[in-house]
């Protein structure tokens, strides 16, 4: 299945072509952590997971066309 991935802040370094938003192919039934492993993002850096309009976690089972946003530890304002 094809999903869209958005890597925020310094997670951009794990993007295959260096761009923060890209499409990615994953096997059916894949969970967010499958994506995280595939990209080589250390688990602790995938701190907040948003799929579509839902804040969720690494266990979330993905579907065709999902947009997954991964946010690393950040803070400050």
């Amino acid at each position, binding site marked *: 299945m094809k999903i869209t991935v958005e890597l*925020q*802040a*310094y997670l951009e370094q794990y993007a295959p072509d260096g761009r923060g938003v890209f499409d990615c192919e994953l096997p059916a039934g894949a969970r967010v952590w499958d994506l995280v492993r595939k990209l080589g993002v250390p688990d602790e*850096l995938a701190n907040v997971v*948003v799929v579509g309009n839902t804040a969720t976690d690494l266990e979330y089972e993905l579907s065709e066309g999902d947009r997954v946003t991964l946010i690393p*530890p*950040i*803070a400050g*304002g």
Partner: protein
Amino acid sequence: MPYGWKGQLLRINLTDGSAQKEPLNMKWAAQYIGGRGLGTKYLLEEIDPACEPLSPANKLVFATGPLSGTYAPTGGRYMVLCKSPLTGAIACSNSGGYWGPELKFAGYDMVILEGRAPKPVYVWVYNDQVEIRDAAHVWGKTIEETEDALRAETDPQARISGIGPAGENLNRVACVINDKSRAAGRSGVGAVMGSKNVKAIVCRGTGAVEVADPLKFGELVFASMKEINASPTTSMALRGMGTASTVGFTNSVGILPTDNFQRGQFEQANAISGQTIAGTVLKRNKGCYSCPIGCARVTETSGASKWKGHGEGPEYETIFGLGSDCGVGELDAVLYANYLCNQYALDTISAGGTVAVAMELAQRGYIPPEDLKEVGTELKFGNADAVMRCLEMMTYRQGKLGDLMAEGGYRLAEHYGHPELFMGSKKQDFAAYDPRGAKGMGLGYATSNRGACHLRGYSMTVEWFAPPDMRLDPFTIEGKAKAQLELQHKAGCEDAAGICTFSAFGGLTPDKLAPIYNAATGENLSLGDWMTAGERIWNIERLFNNRAGLSRKDDSLPPRMTREPLTNGAVQGQVVELAPMLEEYYRLRGWDDDGNPSAETLARLGIE
């Protein structure tokens, strides 16, 4: 000399032009740690909290902490305190840079400005020599012009904390700026400085701050520095992208305030994000005194637009205030507006909030055409020209609308009959997190003693930023009152000690900070004692506010936050259920139903 301190304060009577040195009250210093706590204690003892903030009866306190000027991580902070002309409550604005340490090096822990000078002056402090000098030649000048002129006539290494035209014109959201761009931003402390006819305090010191146990202090400091350097939050996010790294996050989940909090997602967020800044306009990062993080941004506009300039910023809060909340997604325009605020010495959060309120008032047809005409361009969300023009109008009180905007967003909205459109608490604008998507932030905004503030009880850190196994559900109210208490006490101690709250993101949590304080001062506070000191600080601030006439009615949120659900992102459908959180909060604090600390609470905390 007491360790961590110089043991001396400088009291300037502006009315009669005298300057006196007096011993610091070390009993109070021990009880209230320093900075924010100690400054509040002095104010509570020395002024009537019911006084008119812009009258000579108010005092302006510049207070360092025992770690300011040491080499503790981020030990460069100081506070500016007074009764706020914006909120009528306690004002305690925090700034970094190098001015606070320089004051300590000159031999003073604190400066108290009293009365009102008959004409514009500045204060020149060179170690034990103190002069009150004429400032006619810099009155009306911008921050940069003022600093350059005063440094040229005093000492090339002098550090300067002062006001711009906004403070001189008694703009209620004017700030105090040191080192050209580090702001004691909130609550209108710059207007109080302006009301006293003081342009700046120029400082140069050649002394040092001694600590009680240098070996232990060094061991603890180096361990903390190492941890801060290893933490992804401080070393990769804050150092690499500054606070602006947060833009993408808040926009993704739907709590990036947009168009005066009418929405929580901004279509142009990517254009003003930390990633975009790092890849385009960023020249270098910059750190304050003894800071291993270096989150400040030195930037220059791209050159591809009509907005041209260079300077420091923008912070995340500025990107919201002058960007998304005004609907402006052009990065150069946000930078330029930031530079203007630095030069005028305006709080970027409240200046942006004021413009955003004006834009919504205009959007809904509540400002008559003759008033709108003064802007000279359409006052609507997304119009960067209108933002720049409004900043100028409010700084110089140009026209009726400029004069109203200089009073801050609440008074502006109230004038046009719609105070409910002001987004803030205690007449101070919200920061850059829509509390409907982080309900603890709602309680934090409402109960913050200085009016709406994200840093007094930074609930985002436990509702969104924390690792998943330590995170509180942002959409529930359970546990939020208890969390707020802990966060408020923690921040109070940081502000009192003289360090930056961002150090905690790199692991300098209260259990590690208290031992550093002990090694510096020779005190022996347990973690429990430390947090109790934070609670003591919170309660004397509250006492100040109660005596100023504030009560439960002021611990409030606008109806938009409590009745109108957000409609976008992961937070859609949410409002803040403030009343039950507030009830629990008062109970946990040991306050009565109207928000007054009980006699038992005050006795338990040793507050006389």
